[in-house]
């Protein structure tokens, strides 16, 4: 009787195991991988997973490797080498730049371009990439305090994506309970780490969850399954965000058209206020560490769209004369708190017109949408390097 059960069960288990191994080998031979790029983090909600590596093929195509310090960068030492000027770039997905190869990312372009900066007296230059996809300014400030400061940078550059960073800083607009925020209590700005008490977040830190993530980290077949689960979540998020600004020309899901005009609601006024105060606080944090601080605003696809008619239509539909409200506001914030700013979008729009360049978009997205392509990173890296060389070194 017992044999009658054991043999079929053994055959079932063996068959499933062989099937799983066949799939695993096939995925490895064909280069199919969906690495777990992130892990739960008690300070920033999530951070890049050290050692994660694989091909990113959803937008653009690049082999991405996260170094042992959790940076999308080559291996770096925590201690700054003698005779080196070190620049830390903080930012979100534009800075992490999984869409392009590492040497094509704008921090890498900067590092290369700054070697010929005449203000350097034989010092070497290092530009460290601390970008994490999905971060907002609040997380970037906390990331500086917890991680970046240890690397003793001489200059800290905050790369802002105005298309979503402002919203990212507001719980009222974002509604994500898995990450930290800053809260305005009267005049004072205080960090809010209440996400740590969220059961969903605590589950991410549990032994069973970390064990499962470790299995996924090592198995291509499990990566495909986990990726499919994430896609279901993403599709739900796309459906939830449909309706807000979807009629505006060049609208992109996940980016906010509201940033291009004076805030019209209490939530947006608060989001801007929070962003400005976080920037002011970050400037103090950075200066106290002995480094210089500057903010660079990047470009959103619609601001530098290769077709001027699309840009004009978007501005008309939004009731604004141009799409540079966030740039002007960040510039004003810089003047208020005393930090230099570089606004790339107007400069890149000019270049788009003069040289018919397309800075955003890949085969999968079409031109003018999504993150920067290689051209966008190249031009941005060179412009930022020129700014750093002239104003910060």
């Amino acid at each position, binding site marked *: 009787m017992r044999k009658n059960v054991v043999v079929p069960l053994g*055959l*079932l288990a*063996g*068959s*499933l195991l*062989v*099937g*799983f191994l*066949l*799939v695993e080998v096939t*995925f490895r031979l064909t280069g*199919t991988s*969906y690495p777990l790029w*992130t892990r*739960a983090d008690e300070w920033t*909600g*999530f951070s890049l997973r050290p050692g994660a590596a694989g091909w990113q093929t*959803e*937008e653009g195509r690049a082999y991405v490797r996260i170094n042992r310090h959790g940076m999308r960068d080559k291996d770096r030492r925590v201690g700054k080498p003698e005779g080196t000027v070190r620049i830390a770039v903080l930012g979100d*997905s534009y800075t992490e730049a999984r869409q392009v190869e590492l040497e094509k990312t704008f921090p890498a372009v900067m590092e290369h371009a700054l070697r010929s900066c005449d203000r350097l007296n034989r010092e070497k230059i290092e530009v460290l990439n601390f970008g994490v*996809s*999905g971060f907002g300014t609040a997380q970037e400030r906390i990331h500086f305090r917890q991680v970046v400061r240890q690397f003793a940078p001489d200059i800290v550059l905050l790369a802002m994506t105005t*298309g*979503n960073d402002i919203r990212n800083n507001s719980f009222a607009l974002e509604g994500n309970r*898995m990450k930290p925020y800053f809260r305005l209590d009267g005049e004072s700005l205080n960090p809010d780490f209440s996400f740590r008490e969220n059961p969903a977040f605590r589950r*991410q830190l549990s032994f069973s969850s970390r064990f499962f993530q470790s299995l996924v980290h090592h198995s291509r*077949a499990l990566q*495909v*399954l986990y*990726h*499919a689960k*994430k*896609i279901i*979540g*993403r*599709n739900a*998020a*796309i459906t939830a*965000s449909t309706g807000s600004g979807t009629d505006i020309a060049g609208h*992109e*899901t*996940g*980016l906010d058209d509201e940033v291009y005009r004076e805030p019209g609601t209490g939530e947006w006024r608060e989001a801007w206020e929070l962003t400005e105060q976080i920037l002011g606080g970050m400037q103090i944090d950075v200066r106290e560490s002995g480094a210089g601080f500057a903010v660079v605003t990047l470009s959103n696809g619609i601001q530098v769209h290769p077709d001027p008619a699309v840009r004009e239509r978007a501005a008309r539909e939004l009731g604004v004369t141009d799409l540079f409200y966030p740039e002007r506001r960040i510039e004003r914030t810089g003047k208020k708190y005393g930090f230099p700013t570089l606004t790339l979008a107007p400069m890149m729009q000019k270049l788009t017109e003069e040289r018919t360049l397309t800075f955003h978009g890949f085969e*999968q*997205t079409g031109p003018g*949408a*999504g*993150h920067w392509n290689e051209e966008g990173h190249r031009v941005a890296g060179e412009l930022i390097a020129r700014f750093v060389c002239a104003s910060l070194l």
Partner: protein
Amino acid sequence: MSKLAIFAELWQFMRVRKKWWLLPMILLITLLGLILVFAQGSALAPFIYTVF
């Protein structure tokens, strides 16, 4: 049509030779293949971040 014939032949093979232990393996491989196709064909939204 010929692709479907492969499955019919496999079924015949398992039935005649009594190799039923192959069935879970084939189902698992098919399922993971379908999930891979689903994962590759999903809508692209570069600025929607599903972290966990």
